[in-house]
C-alpha cells in the first residue's frame, strides 16, 4: 500500500470515528415508557407514536418549544431556556436548561439525566407536576415564587445547587421551562389514560355497515386512531384535559398556606416562651397525633421507618415488580424488560435527620411550618394541617408552630439523652 493510500485510509477512519461520535441529531423528547408499557395503561406502538405526534404539536421539541395560548406560558422565556446553549451579541444567554439543568434532570425533565445515578437524592422528575418544597397545600402545584426560591437557594444537602448568580430574567426563563416540562408530562399521562380508557380497538365495518371477518371468521378489528386534528370529539377532550392541567397551575397562588396571624409566635427572641413552645412541640413529636417519631425516630436522627418510598421510586418499584412477575402482553414483553433495565435502582425515602439543622426546603420558620402543615408532596411525609382550604387538619396551627420550635431546637439537644440512634436497617433500605 503506498503512502498516499495509507494516509487517505487513516484520515478516512479518523473522520468516520469523529462523525459517528458526533451528536448531529436534533434532540427529541421521549415518551415515559414506564407509563406506556405498564400494566395500568399498556399502550400499543401506533398509539405511542400518535401520542408523541400530538405532544409534538402541542409542545414542540427541545430545540423549538411551543406552547398553546391556553397554557399561559411565555414563549419568549421558553425560547430563552430551550435549545442548545449559546450567547447572543448583547450577552443574553440562551439554552439555559441545557446548560444548567438537563445533565441532572434530563432533556425530558424525567429526572434521569446522565449524572442522575450518582446523585443523592435522584433529581426531580417534573413530568408529574409534583414538587416537594412549596408553600401550597399538598396536592396543589407550586407557585412561581416556590420554584424561584428553590432555584435561588438550591437544596442544601442535595446536589441541587443555588443559581443565585444567574440574572433574574434567566431564573424566570428556567421557571417557565420547568412548568412547561411539567405540563407536557402531565399531558402525556392524560393522553395515555385517554387512549387506554376511551379509544382502543373497534370492529372494521364494510360499506353496508357489517363487520369484516378475518381468516378465522372472527370480526376484524383496528385501533381507533388518536387524531385530534380530524376528530372533533377528540379535540374537545384534549382541550378539556389541557384546561384541567393549566387550571392546576393557575390556581397555585390561591392555594398558598397563609398562617393565621394570632397563632404565629410574635417574639421568637424570648427564650422562655421559645422553650415552652418547644417543650409542647416535643410532646407532639412523640405523641400519636403528630407521630413524627414514627419516621424521624426517637432521636430525630431520621432513623425511624426507612423502608417507604416516594411516588417516583414507588412507580418504578411497582413496574419492576410487575415485570419480574409477569412479562405482560406478548407485544410488550421485550420492551418491558428493556425499560426495566434502563431504570436506576429504586431507593427508599429516608426521613430527614433533624439534628443536622439542614432543611432542604429552607430553614426559615415559615418553611418548616409549611412542611409540617402540608407535608412533602410525593413523599411519605404527611401534612398535619388541612389537605385543602376549609378542610380539617390533625393539628392546630399553634401546635404546628410548637413543632416548628421543637424541630429548630433539635440540633442543640443532646442526642444521647433520649435514646441512642438506631442503626440503618440495611436489609430493608435500598
Amino acid at each position, binding site marked *: 500500500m503506498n503512502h498516499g493510500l495509507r494516509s487517505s485510509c487513516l484520515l478516512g477512519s479518523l473522520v468516520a470515528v*469523529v462523525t459517528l461520535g458526533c451528536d*448531529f441529531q436534533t434532540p427529541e423528547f421521549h415518551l415515559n415508557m414506564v407509563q406506556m408499557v405498564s400494566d395500568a395503561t399498556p399502550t400499543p406502538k401506533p398509539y405511542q407514536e400518535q401520542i408523541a405526534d400530538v405532544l409534538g404539536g402541542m409542545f414542540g421539541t*427541545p430545540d423549538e418549544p411551543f406552547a398553546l395560548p391556553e397554557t399561559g406560558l411565555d414563549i419568549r422565556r421558553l425560547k430563552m431556556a430551550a435549545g*442548545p446553549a*449559546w450567547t447572543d451579541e448583547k450577552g443574553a444567554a440562551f439554552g439555559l436548561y441545557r446548560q444548567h439543568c438537563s445533565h441532572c434532570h434530563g432533556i425530558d425533565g424525567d429526572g434521569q439525566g446522565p449524572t442522575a445515578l450518582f446523585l443523592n437524592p435522584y433529581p426531580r422528575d417534573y413530568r408529574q407536576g409534583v414538587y416537594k418544597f412549596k408553600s401550597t397545600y399538598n396536592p396543589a402545584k407550586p407557585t412561581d415564587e416556590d420554584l424561584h426560591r428553590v432555584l435561588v437557594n438550591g437544596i*442544601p*444537602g442535595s446536589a441541587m445547587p*443555588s443559581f443565585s448568580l444567574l440574572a433574574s430574567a434567566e431564573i424566570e426563563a428556567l421557571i417557565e421551562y420547568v412548568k412547561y416540562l411539567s405540563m407536557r408530562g402531565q399531558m402525556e399521562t392524560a393522553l395515555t389514560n385517554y387512549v387506554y380508557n376511551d379509544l382502543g380497538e373497534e370492529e372494521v365495518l364494510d360499506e353496508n355497515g357489517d363487520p369484516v371477518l378475518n381468516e378465522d371468521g372472527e370480526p376484524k378489528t383496528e385501533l381507533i386512531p388518536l387524531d385530534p386534528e380530524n376528530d372533533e370529539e377528540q379535540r374537545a377532550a384534549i382541550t378539556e384535559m389541557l384546561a384541567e392541567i393549566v387550571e392546576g397551575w393557575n390556581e397555585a397562588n390561591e392555594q398558598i398556606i397563609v398562617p393565621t396571624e394570632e397563632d404565629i409566635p410574635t417574639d421568637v427572641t424570648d427564650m422562655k416562651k421559645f422553650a415552652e413552645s418547644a417543650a409542647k412541640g416535643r410532646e407532639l413529636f412523640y405523641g400519636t397525633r403528630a407521630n413524627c417519631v414514627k419516621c424521624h425516630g426517637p432521636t430525630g436522627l431520621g432513623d425511624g421507618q426507612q423502608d417507604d418510598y416516594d411516588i417516583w421510586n414507588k412507580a418504578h418499584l411497582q413496574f419492576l415488580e410487575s415485570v419480574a412477575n409477569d412479562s405482560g402482553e406478548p407485544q410488550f414483553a421485550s420492551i418491558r424488560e428493556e425499560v426495566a433495565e434502563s431504570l436506576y435502582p429504586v431507593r427508599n425515602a429516608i426521613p430527614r435527620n433533624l439534628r443536622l*439543622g439542614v432543611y432542604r426546603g429552607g430553614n426559615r420558620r415559615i418553611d418548616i411550618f409549611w412542611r409540617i402543615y402540608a407535608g412533602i408532596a410525593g413523599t411519605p411525609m404527611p401534612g398535619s394541617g388541612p389537605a385543602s382550604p376549609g378542610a380539617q387538619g390533625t393539628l392546630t396551627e399553634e401546635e404546628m408552630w410548637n413543632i416548628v420550635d421543637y424541630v429548630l431546637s433539635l440540633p442543640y439537644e443532646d442526642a444521647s439523652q433520649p435514646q441512642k440512634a438506631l442503626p*440503618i436497617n440495611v436489609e430493608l433500605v435500598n
Partner: protein
Amino acid sequence: MTTSRTTRNSIVHLWAWGLACATFPLIWWGGLVTTTGAGMAFRDWFTSDGYLMPFYPWLNSTGEKFIEHGHRLLGMIVGLQAIGLVGITWKKEPRNWVRMFSVAILIGVILQGTLGGMRVVFDERTLALIHGCTGPLFFAMCVAMVVFTSRWWRDTQANSEFQSSSQQMKYFRLAILTTILAYLQLVVGAVVRHSPHLTHQSASAMFQAAVYLHILLAFAIIVHGLLLLWQASRCHFPTERCWFLAILIGMQIVLGASTWIVKYGLPRWASQTFGELTVANTADNAFQAIIVTSHVAVGSLILVTALAIALRTARQLSFGVFAVDSAPSRLGAVL
C-alpha cells in the same frame, strides 16, 4: 564554534520554554471555558461576533465572552509562538528531526485551533470533548520540545555512561506507562466533563462508565506514581521529578474529590458515612470554577511531568528512538 552552537540552541530552548509556558495557561483557560459553559459565547469563528480576533474589544467584555475570547487570544498567541519556533528551529537547530518536530508542533496547534473552531461552527459537544483531549497532547509536544532542546539532552548524548540494567528498564517502562495512564485519565476526564451535556440517550451510559473508569485510573496512577518514586531510588536516578509528580498526583486526588463535591454534592455513600453538606453549592461561582479548572490544569501537569521523566530516562538509557540514526524514524517514534 561550540560556544556559537550552544548559544543558538539555548535560543531554541528558551523559545520552546516560552511556548510551553504559554500553552499551560491556554490549557487551564480552556478548562475554564468548559467549567463556565462559555464555549458558545460566540457563534462565529474565526471571528468573534464579527470582529477579527485581535480587534475584538476583549477588555470591555464580561462573563462568558471575556472567558471564551481570552481562550481564543491565548490560542492565537500560542499559534504565533509555534510559527516562531519553526522559524528559529530551522535557522538555529542542526538536528533535522528536531526541526521536523517543530513543524509537527505547528501542525498540532493549527489542528487544535481548527477543532476548537469547528466545535463553535457546528455547536457540537463531541468536538469540544475531542478538543479537550487533544489540548493536553499538544502541551505534551511542547514540553517534549523543551526536553529535546535542553543542554542536558545534548550533553547526555555526548557523554552517555549509562548502561541499561533490568531495573532501569523497569523504571523507563513505568515512566512510559504512567504517561500513558495520565493521558488516558485526561481523555476519560474530558468524557466525564462533556458527556452530561450530550443529548443522545447513550450519554448516561457514557458518563457512568467514564466516572468508574476515572476512579479506577486514579488508583492506577497513584500506584504507578509511587512505584516510579521507589524505582528511581533503587536505580539511583534523581528523584526530584518523581517527588514533584507524586505531589501533583496527591493534589489531583484532593482536587478531584473537591470537584465532585462542588459540582454534585456528596455521593450517597459518603453522606451516609460522613453526614450531609450543610449548604447548597452555588452554580458557576468563582470557588467552583477555580476548583474544577485546577483539576483540569493539574491533570495536564501530571501528564507532562511523567512525559519529561520518561523522555529523560530514555535519553539516559540511550534507548529506543534516541539510539536510531534515521531522523524520520526518530520523529515517528516520538509522535
